[in-house]
């Protein structure tokens, strides 16, 4: 039982990391008032460019860096349309996903199905990794687990809720006109936070191919970008909660692996549906059960609304 639990948690942490990175990035963009539906495409681009990079430069760090930079570039393209040109955010986001998925498949054509050359190896932290159940999951896997689950969310939480800059950033998402009147550069704030969110989606893609699923294939992102978007809503746009819900979500994924490994009498196709069904339940059930949830977890007031200084 303990062994099963340990194994499940390890898988959950590994699988949830992809979502934690992407969803945290999306929290930044949405708190600044921009919905980026392009996450799925940016993750695919990050995943494929990481694979391509490590096949010529055998360093997972450089692969991850390139994935992040590509994600940032894609985020800038989206932000150019949605923030600078103030075009419809849903359309720009979908277009970014189409471009990302299409380009990544075209780019990865020669790499499809081959094992990734270099990945992040196992790093075992002495002492800490021998804590029962959670030790192997947090400190016995790759080196990115602690930054993803502890350092980044803590940093984002601190900046967003404990600094003046964070207050300004949230003001841009809640009431851009007031923020503008107070001298906060609305457009620059949105542009750079969307870019940062894109970079984190790219990193999530790189993390996917450099640790969790070390092989590139078309469609391998498999809706994780959309699940990350759903997690942001579920977590009420809060960085720490979004990270925890990514972990919860990783557990659902792990459950389907455990089912397949233990030959549960359910077809794998149905076990593979679990993450999507779980996400549906995540965003529907809390609101239905507890109506106050809608107000507690409300979206930023100006989310997905372009800001026009000159139009009243």
């Amino acid at each position: 039982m303990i062994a099963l639990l340990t194994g499940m948690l390890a898988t959950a942490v590994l699988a949830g990391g992809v979502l934690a990175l992407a969803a945290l990035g999306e929290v930044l963009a949405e708190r600044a008032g921009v919905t980026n539906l392009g996450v799925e495409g940016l993750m695919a681009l990050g995943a494929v460019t990481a694979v391509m990079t490590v096949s010529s430069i055998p360093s997972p760090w450089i692969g991850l860096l390139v994935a992040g930079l590509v994600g940032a570039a894609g985020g800038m393209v989206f932000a150019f349309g949605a923030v600078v040109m103030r075009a419809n955010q849903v359309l720009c986001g979908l277009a970014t996903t189409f471009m990302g998925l299409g380009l990544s498949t075209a780019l990865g054509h020669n790499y499809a199905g081959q094992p990734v050359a270099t990945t992040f190896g196992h790093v075992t932290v002495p002492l800490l990794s021998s804590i029962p159940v959670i030790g192997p999951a947090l400190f016995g896997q790759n080196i990115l687990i602690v930054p993803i689950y502890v350092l980044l969310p803590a940093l984002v939480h601190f900046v967003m809720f404990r600094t003046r800059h964070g207050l300004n950033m949230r003001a841009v998402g809640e009431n851009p006109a007031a923020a503008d009147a107070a001298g906060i550069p609305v457009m620059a704030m949105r542009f750079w936070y969307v870019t940062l969110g894109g970079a984190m989606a790219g990193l999530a893609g790189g993390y996917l191919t450099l640790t969790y699923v070390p092989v590139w294939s078309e469609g391998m992102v498999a809706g994780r970008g959309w699940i990350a978007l759903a997690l942001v809503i579920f977590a009420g746009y809060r960085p720490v909660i979004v990270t925890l819900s990514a972990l919860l979500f990783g557990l659902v994924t792990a459950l389907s692996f455990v089912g397949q490994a233990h030959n549960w009498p359910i077809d794998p196709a149905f076990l593979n549906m679990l993450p999507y069904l779980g996400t549906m339940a995540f965003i529907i059930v809390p609101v239905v059960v507890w109506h106050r949830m809608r107000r507690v977890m409300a979206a930023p007031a100006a989310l997905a609304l372009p800001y026009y200084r000159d139009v009243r």
Partner: protein
Amino acid sequence: MAARAFQRLPSAPAGRILVLRLAAIVLSLFIIAGVLALSGHSPVTLAELILRSTLGSRFGLEDLALFMCPLLLTGAAVTVCGTIGLWNIGAEGQFYAGAIAATGVALGMHGPAPAVLPVMTIAGILGGMAWITVPTLARAYAGVNEIITTLLLNFIASLLTYYLTTGPWRDRISGAQVSTQRLPVAIPEMWGIVHWGFPVAIVIVIGLALVLSRTRWGYEIRIGGANPEAARYAGIPVRLRIISVMLLSGGLAGLAGMFEVAGTVHRLQGGMANNFGYLGIVVAVLARGSCLNVIPAALLMALILDSGIVMQTQQLSASVVLAITGLILFMIAIGDELAHYRPVASTTPKGKAS
């Protein structure tokens, strides 16, 4: 000073939109040509080849109509949802659900085609409606974002199709992979390989346009989309209208799946939705909320898909088409926004403009 020289209008004139969209498409084509030239393909030869094998040949025109048929219906599905201000991103899943339900009828019901086809049609529509039921109720009663819920169900529908076509319904006759056997009935063909679903789809789209513009129901939907508060104040049951519109939308996408499985593919296959659901969003955007515009929009989208076939013969992967569609959609989104701006005399008093 420069920022003051333009004024944003609440709604953009149609003529300006058309001009800017043409500019957006031309700009996209130039970018694509540039990328193709850089990757060692000759854009001019390719363009010539595409024109010759799409609009310039019988087979190309037949394929064009076959591509248009599902796009008309998924485009209409997204358009009617958009009328009340909602996004149905799940047409892909509803398409599969309709195809699955229709296939179930075709495999289970033995009889002559004139008896089976109407039942398949109804099953397809109901399948699509069933697939959008949960997002519909969640949206209408709990205000849950329909973009995410409709989209997640796409993955589930695709997995269900995979399960059925490799498990209980797998092809035991010819052993085709991820596919059912050839269905015993088919929608009759009217022109080459083009089946009767194509004219029916056009009639449906025109009918929808009339319903939305000429009936009380359509009027209430449009008001509900334009100003939900005013609609509620005027006594329009907005919640019920949301439910009916979303179910209609799911039914249209399900019908697209039925037509595809009974008219074009003749089998239920994994991946048979071919992004038609997602491309329906592009069609709806191009149509700008008008059902009649869905017809030319579907034609443009079908042309792009038809060119994709040619590109595949030229060692360009099918995914390039998706990227090209994304680029065109992106450019058009920007063009539509720019169409809202009207140049004004730069002598405007400074204080007034801000």
